[in-house]
């Protein structure tokens, strides 16, 4: 098992799991969309949709579904704009 944090909350999952699996297990989101600020979470899990872009240890725009979860990783959701414009 490995333990990492997602938006500061600890999350433990099996060794072959991706960071995206951690985001989903936490019930967290990966990012807010750039134009409308709507919440998005991992969708395809195979590197196609790019909805799982998160910040991992300070590096933005990592495709979380293609990164294996590792002990001690700090995962943060990404917010391109403040979710204010609402509509969508």
């Amino acid at each position, binding site marked *: 098992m490995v333990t990492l944090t997602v938006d500061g909350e600890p999350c433990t*999952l*099996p060794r*072959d*799991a*991706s960071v995206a*699996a951690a985001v*989903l*297990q936490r*019930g967290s*989101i990966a990012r807010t*969309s*750039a*134009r*409308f600020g*709507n*919440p*998005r*979470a*991992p*969708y*395809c*899990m*195979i*590197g*196609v*949709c*790019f*909805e799982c*872009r998160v910040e991992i240890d300070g590096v933005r*725009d990592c495709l979380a*579904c*293609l990164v*294996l979860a590792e002990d001690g990783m700090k995962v943060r959701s990404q917010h391109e704009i403040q979710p204010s414009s609402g509509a*969508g």
Partner: protein
Amino acid sequence: MTDSARSDAHAAPLDFELFDLAIIGAGPAGIAAALEARAQRLRTVVLDAQPAPGGSAWRNVEAVTTQRPQDLFVFGPDYADGFPIAQRFRRCGADYRAGASVGAIELAVSAQAAAPQPGVYMPATGALDTGPDIDPATHIERRRTGADRRVHYTDSRGERTLAARHVLIATGAFERAMPLPGWTLPGVLTCGAAHVLLATAGLVPSHPVAIVGSGPLALQVAAQLLRAGVKPVAVVETMPLSNSLGALRHLGAAVLAPGYLAKGLSLSGALRRAGVPRFAGATEVRIEGAARAEVVAFRHRGRTHRLPVATVLLHQGQVPDAQLWQSLKVDRYWDARQWCFRPDVDDWGNTSCAGIVVAGDGAGIGGTEAALCAGELAALSIAWQQRRIDTRERDRRARRAQRALRAHSSMRPFLDRLYLPPPASRVPSDDDTVVCRCEDVCAGELRALVAQGVRSLEQMKAVSRCAMGACGGRLCALTAAELIARATRPA
């Protein structure tokens, strides 16, 4: 160029590792190709974005088999088949590089091209040797010939490049976008994503979970969830009943394909026995919720249903991952039966670009068994083109795979017709539904632009940013193109 010039150049140090064959993708097609290529002693490298071989069909099969064999039954018998094949692949002598995402393939490199130019297109000449490759800085010839293709990829060590005489694109397929109202909400995933989560992380979706759409994978995932102890609250099937009628005339050919119909019936039987409600021919499906998916609403036999959910799994078939071959501008055609673009390849997977070969679901959806055959045939043809085997030997070795490919392909017309996604779930009629997830572009905006005179996907990209986002249009280009076509050519 004289022979002596060649051998001199050959002695010069190479800038890039040079392989006979670079295979992109370690799913069924890529693995089968690697096995055959190694049998013909081709120097072979396999690049795959995932951490372990197997592709989508056999995701993480090695670890599941060795570390939690008690879970194997969840994934069904076809999944377990992947283990011995993955093991043979590990031992075949191909240079397997996991976690390598290919960004671009570059064709014949001209003397002027100093920096890598992703997606540069050179017309296919049919010749493998296209002349010397001169380093513009030193004016020294870098390699024996400029014939090889360069593959630019990223792995944990950063950006890297290798060269290969042939490149086999075996990147498989992904699930067709299903742009329903609410499909961007957290809690909505593809059926394939549920399979990945189960295989890699041992995670099941939060309950209650509904499966929406149609296709073999939707039923497979429903059955997997049942075996994993999660009973879906509903399978909301969007394929219209007319599909079944249309598929009937392909039934004759389908019964010749080994095993498929029996598998389909046994999946249906499992769902029935478990008492999973199926809503066949559901329409007007929408997912509602404020910050997450909370309700799936749809019409079925004249009634409106609203089911509370925590997770919605979407599926309406697969489309080839066209990104790499499309960037090389290989000849392609529209397949109305599979409702997608396919590369125009010969029986061996050769495209219109010399040295670029496509095999498996990336060339058109055929399934795992067909992909294994296609990968093997592609490798035989490449070995033949590189003069490792003569024509007789190629054809002799190809016979088994060719026969098996024909048998497995006889199922496709039936499946394609049965599961052809209905127009309403290909292009959203609701104006507020997002079409392009990356750039947040909605259907109504696209229709408004068409009304203002936008007539092509290229124009649409420029004015709306639809299909210009991070995913490269993989999830929205088909939808946007169809939306434009419908608006400009009303039926």
